[in-house]
């Protein structure tokens, strides 16, 4: 299978832990949000303190675990929100 790079924007504590606001994660083509989550855990161990808490958004909307990802989508990863 073809490997692809997914760019993931990070925010708040996720950004601080990874010390970057944009990381590249390597996944199999046709991957899902759930598999991206696994790849993040393996390739960006700095995020471990937020393990199980991280939310994934695709194209500015919260993503379901089975949602398929492509390289052209905007993907973001962040902790539970605390605005207001």
């Amino acid at each position, binding site marked *: 299978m073809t490997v692809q790079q997914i760019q993931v924007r990070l925010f*708040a*504590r996720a950004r601080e832990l990874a010390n970057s606001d944009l990381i590249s994660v390597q996944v199999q083509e046709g991957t899902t949000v759930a598999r991206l989550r696994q790849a993040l855990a393996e390739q960006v161990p700095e995020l471990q303190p937020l393990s199980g808490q991280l939310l994934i958004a695709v194209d500015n909307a919260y993503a379901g675990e089975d949602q398929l990802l492509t390289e052209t989508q905007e993907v973001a990863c962040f902790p539970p*929100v*605390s*605005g207001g």
Partner: protein
Amino acid sequence: MKTDSISITDQPIDYAAITEQVRSNECGAVVLFMGTVREMTAGKQTVALDYEAYPEMADQMLQQLVDEARDQWDVHAISIEHRVGHLTLGEISVAIAVSSAHRKEAFEAGRFLIDRLKEIVPIWKKENWADGTTEWVHPEIEAK
């Protein structure tokens, strides 16, 4: 008919401007909610809060909240502004104004909008405690 307004800003919030955006001769009621930076939280002293947003998604989620409120209540106009950046004690982090013909709708929609904002809009705050430490506030992991 007034149009709704949503914005994320790094400037101080002018709540009178937010309020004027929703006022109208068609309305008998205006409700304004403001969140402000509180000094004491669970016995700990704060000196400032840093707010960070995912601005493009926050705009989309705020628009979704406005749509949800309009599905449920007959409101005239909604204006929401959320600030990001470094806020000191007493400063306004968010202002939500809702106008309607009668007060019930403005109160209920206003309460709904701030409750939902805190659930889904991608904005985060970091406490700057008086002891010099900082701490991101994340509701589900606060208990740690």
